[in-house]
């Protein structure tokens, strides 16, 4: 079997031909999850229901009636998506033990196509953060921390030091999903992306992270952070697989009034060989302060790759990029303050024992339920929404947002097809180093390269490009035109083929599936 094979070309074929059974796949993944528990990628593992789903899938394959490519495929879902009957916590005390009565549309779609839901993955509380370190269930560990590639490169600082203190973060906030995909415990995972929360951990964990165009995939059932920027994100081990997931999720949802009405046609990605008609834009402002020399060099190398293959590579300018951090901060906190207002302990979720009055119950519930990060953003957001501040901050930020979006419009109108940028400023930081700075500082730093795409609603994808000097993944980002996912993914796939990013060498995975390493050579991801 091919645990690391492409969904469309290998896994689906194996299932159809009976070379592997859905229950087998499911059990393997569940066992691997158990053996990689130290990663803390999963908050809830839905073992019973997953096995049941796998059995049902198996029946369908036996009858020769699989529902599609995703039938029997184990997937994981970030714990801010509603899953009926399975706890949805958002990694917060506020929703610990909360069992939603309904499935998010994207979850329902996956289930309707026979996917096997393994469990809910860990994140920063309410998706606020760029490290997946600030949830109540503890931080997620980057699987690459335990990879041969990383261990070979890391020099122990002292004799007593061991792996434990050296592990690196996944990035965030969809770190659990990225780690799950990266460590082979599932074939694909759903994340969310508001300022980079799918692409950032994808880059740090060496997986493909796709942020679709705003309005393409339904947000119904995704617990919102910033309604005007959130999108469900897709994490996979190959660009082809991302296209498969996209095809199964995209399309109008009457339950989400911000999804576009147009019909969506799922596509298979062509094998692009000729890039001479392509125009790649290199936005100079993305040479941001703090960008590591390594990544800068990688970015440059990638540009050369396209140029040497015949594509037109031009420097472009997105002049309002430096303002995006503060603009994002104002708009994000304002929406957070609003979206979190519903958590009062009355209808669901945590309710404080404080009974003196409704107001005191609310206050205590919210203090007990939310962490500092969430409360900080609520306070900021309410400040910006005050009548006397509204024009100065909120309206002003909306105007700046328009300018940022227009930057992209102008560049795409000038003939550029795709933008190529770094995804992160550096490779993943060790946890002990990462937590030296607070969440707000980290987010401000780490989001700089990813958040403009959310402001403008554009599709963007992280493709793993190379390993850093420390043996950790580094990815590059492609940003495309609105609703032109096919073009974006086609280019991304071409790039993926050129760079041949190495497979993670994990003991646990190796022990579990010797097949993985048998197929290692042919892991030119579909």
């Amino acid at each position: 079997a091919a645990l690391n094979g492409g969904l469309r070309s290998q896994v689906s074929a194996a299932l159809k031909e009976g070379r592997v059974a859905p229950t087998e796949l499911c059990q393997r993944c569940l066992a691997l999850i158990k053996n990689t528990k130290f990663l803390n990628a999963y908050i809830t593992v839905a073992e019973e229901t997953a096995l049941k789903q796998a059995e049902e899938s198996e029946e369908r394959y036996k009858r020769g009636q699989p529902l599609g490519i995703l039938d029997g495929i184990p997937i994981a879902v970030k714990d801010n998506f509603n899953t009926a009957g399975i706890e949805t916590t958002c990694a917060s005390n506020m929703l610990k033990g909360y069992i939603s009565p309904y499935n998010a549309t994207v979850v329902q779609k996956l289930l309707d196509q026979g996917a096997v839901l393994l469990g809910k993955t860990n994140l920063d509380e309410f998706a606020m953060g760029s490290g997946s370190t600030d949830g109540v269930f503890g931080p997620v560990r980057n699987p690459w921390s335990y990879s041969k590639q990383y261990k070979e490169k890391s020099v122990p600082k002292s004799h007593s030091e061991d792996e434990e203190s050296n592990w690196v973060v996944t990035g965030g906030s969809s770190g659990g999903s990225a780690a799950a995909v990266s460590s082979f415990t599932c074939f694909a995972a759903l994340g969310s992306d508001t300022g980079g929360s799918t692409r950032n951990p994808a880059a740090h964990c060496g997986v493909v992270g796709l942020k679709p165009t705003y309005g393409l995939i339904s947000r119904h059932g995704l617990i919102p952070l910033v309604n005007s920027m959130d999108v469900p994100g897709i994490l996979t081990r190959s660009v082809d697989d991302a296209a498969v997931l996209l095809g199964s999720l995209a399309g109008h949802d009457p339950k989400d009034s911000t999804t576009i009405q147009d019909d969506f046609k799922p596509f298979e990605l062509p094998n692009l060989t000729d890039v001479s008609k392509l125009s790649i834009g290199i936005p100079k402002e993305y040479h941001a302060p703090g960008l590591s020399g390594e990544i800068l060099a990688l970015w440059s190398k990638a540009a050369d790759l396209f140029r040497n293959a015949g594509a037109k590579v031009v420097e472009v300018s997105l002049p309002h990029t430096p303002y995006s951090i503060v603009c994002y901060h104002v708009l994000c906190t304002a929406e957070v303050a609003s979206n979190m207002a519903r958590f009062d302990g009355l209808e669901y979720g945590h309710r404080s024992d404080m009974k003196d009055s409704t107001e005191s119950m609310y206050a205590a519930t919210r203090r007990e339920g939310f962490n500092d990060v969430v409360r900080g953003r609520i306070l900021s957001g309410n400040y910006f929404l005050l009548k006397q501040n509204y024009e100065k901050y909120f309206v002003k930020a909306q105007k700046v947002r328009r300018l940022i979006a227009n930057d992209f419009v102008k560049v795409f109108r000038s003939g550029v097809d795709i933008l190529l940028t770094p995804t992160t400023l550096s490779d993943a930081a060790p946890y002990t180093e990462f937590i030296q700075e607070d969440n707000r500082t980290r987010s401000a730093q780490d989001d700089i390269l990813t958040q403009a795409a959310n402001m403008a609603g554009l599709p963007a994808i992280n493709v793993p490009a190379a390993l850093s000097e420390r043996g950790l993944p580094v990815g590059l980002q492609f940003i495309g035109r609105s609703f032109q996912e096919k073009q974006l993914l086609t280019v991304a796939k071409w790039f993926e083929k050129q760079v041949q990013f190495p497979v993670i060498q994990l003991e646990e995975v190796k022990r579990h599936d010797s097949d993985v390493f048998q197929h290692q050579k042919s892991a030119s991801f579909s």
Partner: protein
Amino acid sequence: LAPWVPVVGLEIHAQISSNSKLFSGSQVQFAAPPNSLVSFFDASLPGTLPVLNRRCVEAAVMTGLALNCSINKKSLFDRKHYFYADLPAGYQITQQRVPIAVNGSLSYSLCIDNKMSQMVTKTVRIKQIQLEQDSGKSLHDDTRSQTLVDLNRAGVGLMEVVMEPDMCCGEEAAAAVRELQLILQTLGSSQAVMAEGQLRVDANVSVHHPGEPYGVRTEVKNINSIRFLAKAIDYEIQRQIEELENGGTILNETRAFDSKLGCTVPMRDKEGKQDYRFMPEPNLPPLILYDAKSLPANMNHQQVINIDWIHERLPDLPSVKRKKLVEQYGILPEHSFTLLNEDGLAEFFENVVKETQMKPKKVIGWILKDLLSYLKQHSLTVNESPVSSFLLADLLNLLEKKAISSTAAKQVLAELWKGEGKTPLEIVKEQKLELLQDQKELEQICQAVIDGHKNEVIMMVLG
């Protein structure tokens, strides 16, 4: 003493008559078991999103057109934030920046000095109509120190109609609200029954001296009927005048009307000077409405609202109906008001006219004096009348044919009212109320009387 000019404006919330709520599919129904009509969205479950109800938009457009408003082809939704047990999301979705309709007017009529014969027409400007969510209900159980929350009403569609401060007293406000109520009921956009909370009125009241700027205004809430509306406003006007004449000041506060005491009292300051932190509702794109000119050719008819199409299908408004009644039947304008004021009465009247030879001008007297007073006495609606339009028409025909006198007719009506199923003719025969038509018989009776009272006759002949 310098005269005072009272100024009254109104904020009216009318519950939209629709099967489901403004942004979710749960049912709208009065007096259902608590928390039995609550969707995931209404309960503010995380991850749920609002979906706009088409019928509610149509109701608002109809109402806007009936009130001579400009319908905004693009209107927006906003969030108004405050914490309260009956507001699950911590915010209400409303239209603060750009409402669906603006700049209209409402004409209403008043009797001068309580004389129905002297009616004057007044106009109040409609500032705007906005769509917004209703809140749930909370009941405070002080004995057990708890608050009970029922979310059945949370999310029901409301039209907030804002009337400019063009009114001067309780009577005007009452008449304006009554006319609005009739319009809404005619359109069907709201059943507008105040007793069921489908129409809620808050009054803004202030007083000032002529030529001076407007005074500080108070908001009066908790008014449960049109009658109380007039009382509350008039009380508040008086209270403010007395306060100011005694050297006091008026606070910009919210006051509740206490119907038992007949006065307004300051409300427990539950909100204070609230900053609602308005923010655009990010989950609802701008609401775009079309007219015949702007409607794109390939639009899916199901997905759009055409203002002109709605306009063409508006029913006759009360003012038009009254005019038609006056023109068609030759009744007085004040008669048409009373006919429309009573649910079903105009229809009853027209049905009687259809079935009788009696002139409408005469029929109206029977409807407005006799029938209506019976109904009022017994607290019955027209639909509950034991006397149907057919029965009354029958009776009036007998009168018209001079088969009975009008005094006899009244007797018959009293009998009909008992609802024993007898026809007018049967009652007449029973009680021997027939007018004698036979000349000879009459002469005989007269002769008999004269013969029987010879002395009186001689007295009369002698003068």
